[in-house]
């Protein structure tokens, strides 16, 4: 397990009397595509919210292994600090900065890495301008990878639904993550769009070496791209394994179909 990138141990999240997630262990290795599935209310999004710092876990440890082998326990860190450690996410419902253009949305993602301060912005010296141009180029590059370049100067809220979802992924990629957390990326997409998403997710992993953890209800997509699958039900981890193992697992079938 030398190349583990995210390790979640004995993790529980309790809201009042509700055990949203109960004593879960999950680990993700570098360059894997891992899926997290389970019926509605199983605690999948809660787990994402804890990993990205929106909630502080009630119990357990979430540890990130950085690219330079530094180990950081991220429980309770501010979301922006976690982003700096190389984690990025998208949401189930689209949360773009609606009044900005697609390009600006991606440029905001590059924010963490910009060095120039106020003084630079006022003086507009060579370094600042070069840096800004760099950000624009990087952002355009990301848009091109996701075939969104023709929407670059459109206001985000005017984009069609499919491209809006992809733009969320583009913005997350702009933070240069090692691990990308996708919360139901295919929700509401049609068959063709889902096919393209399948291709794009694999491409992001293969070309950018970005590890992917996704929550998804579209089983065709999950079975075709995930290498490992975790199944949550009522906050408990009920199964873990390859797509073939999960398909044959009686506990999973029971959770989804009932007895």
């Amino acid at each position, binding site marked *: 397990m030398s190349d583990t990138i995210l390790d979640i141990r004995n993790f529980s999240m309790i809201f009042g009397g509700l055990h949203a997630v109960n004593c879960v262990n999950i680990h993700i290795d570098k360059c894997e595509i891992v899926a997290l599935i389970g019926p509605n209310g199983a605690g999948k999004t809660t787990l994402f919210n804890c990993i990205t710092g929106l909630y502080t876990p009630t119990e357990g440890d979430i540890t990130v292994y950085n690219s330079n082998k530094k180990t950081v326990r991220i429980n309770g860190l501010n979301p*922006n600090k976690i982003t700096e450690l190389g984690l990025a996410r998208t949401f189930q419902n689209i949360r773009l900065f609606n009044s900005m253009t697609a390009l600006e949305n991606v440029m905001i993602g590059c*924010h*963490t890495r910009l060095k120039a301060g106020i003084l630079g912005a006022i003086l507009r010296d060579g370094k600042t301008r070069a840096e800004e141009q760099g950000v624009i180029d990087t952002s355009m590059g990301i848009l091109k990878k996701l075939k969104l370049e023709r929407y670059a100067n459109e206001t985000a809220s005017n984009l069609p639904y499919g491209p809006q979802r992809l733009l969320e992924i583009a913005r997350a990629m702009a933070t240069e993550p090692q691990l990308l957390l996708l919360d139901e990326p295919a929700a509401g997409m049609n068959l063709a769009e889902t096919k393209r998403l399948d291709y794009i997710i694999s491409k992001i992993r293969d070309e950018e070496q970005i590890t992917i953890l996704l929550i998804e209800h579209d089983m065709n997509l999950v079975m075709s791209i995930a290498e490992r699958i975790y199944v949550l039900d009522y906050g408990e981890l009920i199964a873990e394994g390859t797509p073939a193992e999960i398909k044959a697992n009686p506990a999973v079938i029971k959770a989804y179909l009932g007895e």
Partner: protein
Amino acid sequence: MEYFLQLVLAGLTKGSIYALIALGYTMVYGVFKLINFAHGEIYMIGAFTALIVGGALQITTDLAPSMIFLISLVAAIFFSAAHGATMERIAYRPLRQAPRLTALISAIGMSLILQNYVRLAQTSDFLPFHSMIPDIPWLTPGVSPITTTQLTIVVTTVVVMISLTLFIKFTKMGKAMRAAAQDRIMAQLVGIDMNRVATYTFVIGSVTAAIGGVLIANHMGQINFYIGFLAGIKAFVAAVLGGIGSIPGAVLGSFVLGMAESFGAGYISSAYEDAFAFIILIIVLIFKPSGLLGRNEVEKV
């Protein structure tokens, strides 16, 4: 006709001052959905700093009045900005996750603390403030309708507005502020440090308020610890009138308010000058609850 022109100029001057203060309200509200009731106090502290620094320089040095004005303005800006940043740090940052009402009460408390601290440190009497803005020769009082101070106020406001617009539009921090105003959680998730955004928002609001405070003190000729209250309320009304959270809205609202007060006082009755602000507010809110340029917020369920 000349009377009319005078009223227009008086309205513009008032509107400029309101705009300088209203910016702070609207920016803080836009990013944090918090009404910073202590904002008027920052403006008052700006005026006091200029009075003290300007007075000390007038006695101890023989600098030109315009130099003294500039130095006291810069001192006021720094002192007010420090107050704004500190206020955010101690009164609002610990309450960022708290319900909005809690932060509002904290704001009112902050306002009372700052007022009384100036009252104790200085005095509760009105202090004369000798205008430090030297008269420009071609603007002879009585001949030209506009005074140098009025001209300075209007020009300064325009310059501040333009710089702020450019800042919000083009700088990294400006983009971060816009992103945070739209979706604070998402902004953090793309790596924006909300604490830095908070500090910048409060500092910028305090800087413009301090400029407003110094200018109005030069214009009115007297200040006391309580001037921040009414000015703060009026600027708040202006921000709501224009649509709170919107920067162009705050500017528009301020000028509408300034004009309404000026014309109301000039043509109807000066006894009700302060009432016109609120009459206009009520009329606008009846027909457009989100303010002149405010967007209707659609609650998602």
